[in-house]
């Protein structure tokens, strides 16, 4: 039994050179092919990620700018609603200060003279809808295939246009 194993080993070690080369070439070709596929997928993924990242960066930047503009507008509105300006405008419109004896008070059933506390009523920004993570390997593979076919179609279209 031991002798058979040894013979097998020797046979393997004494394989003809052409057979080794053919297998090695096939293996190398296969490796290169797999590497190209993997590399392509990786590059597609990274490219997509980079584009998304850049878009996200632009969106964040736009949002920050809008928030800043909003804050600046808040300042401008506060200036327009400032008491000195309102007083000046009221005078332009010939309003005069009310005096205590020029005000008529009435009893209104159910009216609460204690004004409703409006400081608690605040407009809350609607919470953004968060994306649901439901990715599976099958879905990811389909997505990659779709991206690949879309790029291929686009390449074929451009080539045929030329």
């Amino acid at each position, binding site marked *: 039994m031991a002798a058979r194993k040894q*013979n097998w080993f*020797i046979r393997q*070690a004494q394989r003809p050179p052409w057979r080794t080369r053919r297998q090695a070439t096939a293996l190398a070709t296969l490796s290169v092919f797999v590497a190209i596929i993997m590399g392509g997928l990786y590059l597609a993924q*990274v490219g997509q*990620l*980079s584009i*998304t*990242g850049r878009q*996200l*960066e632009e969106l*964040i930047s736009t*949002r*920050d700018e809008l*928030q*800043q503009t909003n*804050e*600046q507008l*808040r*300042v401008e509105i*506060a*200036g327009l*609603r*400032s*008491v*000195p300006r309102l007083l000046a405008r009221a005078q332009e419109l010939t309003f005069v*200060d*009310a*005096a*205590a*004896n020029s*005000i008529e*008070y009435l*009893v*209104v*059933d159910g*009216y*609460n*003279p*204690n*004004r409703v*506390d*409006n*400081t*608690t009523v*605040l407009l*809350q920004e609607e919470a953004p809808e968060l994306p649901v993570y439901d990715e599976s390997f099958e879905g990811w593979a389909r997505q990659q295939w779709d991206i690949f076919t879309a790029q291929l179609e686009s390449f074929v279209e451009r080539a045929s246009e030329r």
Partner: protein
Amino acid sequence: MQLQPQQDIFRKRLPFVIIALTVATAALLGRLATLQYQSPEVLNYLERVRNSNYNDTLQLAASRGRIYDRDLEPLAVNTLDYEIGISPNLVAEPRETATTLASILELNELEAFEMVSSNQPWVSLAKPVSAEVAQQIGQADLGGVTIDPIPRRQYPQGTLAAQIIGFVGEDLQGYYGVEGFYQDQLAGLVRDRQVSNIPFDVPQDFGGDRGKDIVLTIDRDIQFLVESELQHAVTESGASEGTIIIMDPRNGDILAMASYPTFDPNFYYDVVDPTLLRNPAIGEQYEPGSVMKVLTVAAAIEDGAITPGWTYNDQGILEMGGITIQNWDRNAHGLVDTTQLLVESLNVGAATVATELGPTNFYSMMSSFGIGRATGIDLQGEQAGMMFVPGDPDWSESQLGTNSFGQGVATTPLQMLTAVSALANGGLMMQPHVVHQIIDGTEIYTSQPSALGRPISAETAGILTEMMVSVVNDGVDEAGIAGYTIAGKTGTAQIPTPLGYENDSSIVTFIGFLPADDPVAVVLVKLDRPREYWGSLVAAPVFRRLAERLVIMLEIPPDDIRHALAAEGGAVGHINR
């Protein structure tokens, strides 16, 4: 079969190679396994080492919370200014660049050229500049020019409520007022953020982190009225400075608090005299003068040392602890009751009442009114005042007499207002406060009124209110307004110096509340060193002008209408909360 020598060597060495590889693999796997079970410190260290290769750690401060008045009018917001700089090495045409920059930034052209052609790697050209100027620079598209944003706290109402709000310095730290007191809440947290250096990493969004917003009890319209009236009063009376505070005695809400002169928090760095940045309403101590008499009488009635009908024989002079106490008019007033004591504001009467009360009870009652103790208002920079009590090395028996009419004791304007507000609120002294709500995202925290204590009973408070109404009706008609019952008391205090008291200078005050039978607002008016010496002539008219506008702004009908409306079932008098 005969093996060849090489094959023989290969066969002999192969087990050693296999064993070596197996051992190495086992060692690596073992090491990998042990790494999973390290202490948190070691794991953190390893994580930091790993991250340091492709991450930068930035300390990012949250956006500061805004400050609003009680009707949500913005009082403090955040904007951006910009710093314009230049990297001279990157400038291709220094002359043209300098000319363009000088015209936009309003710089001297020669100086601009020197900066643009300097040997430094980077030079700051202008800071801070507005967004408009930064935009112009950006549009000029000059090589080597940098535009860096600088966070800026802006106060859109200008000087309005400046001493309440405080300001934010260049270090983004709040100083004085609400900005200082609520620094932690407004500023939020400074967090360590990991920012990836890998170009295709999706950037993290740090924009959502911000400090809490604060809604004040201040009513912007009343604050404006108070500041306008104060400025007018200081100018008209020739006073060096002044303070007005308005508080709701029922809950301690500060509706307005102003001192003049003041400053613009947008340009705090231009203020030459740093004392202007403080809030004198809470940080400046003064001798309150005759306003103290209402507390003395209230304490004596509450203690039972005197009754409301108590009388004494005023001889115009009283020897006490080795000093002579005299009335303001140096006259004797004969048989005087407690109401007349307050109406005529008699020093001898107040000292006599304090003697009846005795030092232990007097100082105990003054302490329960909060004299000599900070009110605990939520503003930075409050002083506690000063009152010597028996047992202190600086106390003497004569001080019982002088303290009874507000001399030799130091209080802040807010302390006096808070003490008198106890009389207006049925004996219950409320904690003064300026913050109504704190908004943390979707959470809103509303401040609940809290009491500092009950120095006197409701009955005593009612008696004192009637006496203070008599003061206004029979003694200080300058403070009265037609149709309304007002309770009040003047104060005229000498100004202490290291060598005694200033000649011909005084601090005049008036504290009043309205409507007297159902007070909605307690008002303190204080003016320092006016031309006229007496509080009734200077501070009382200011109170009247304020009260005339306040009854409209707070929707308080005249007494007859108010009582008629109440009889018909209408609730009257409001405050917006």
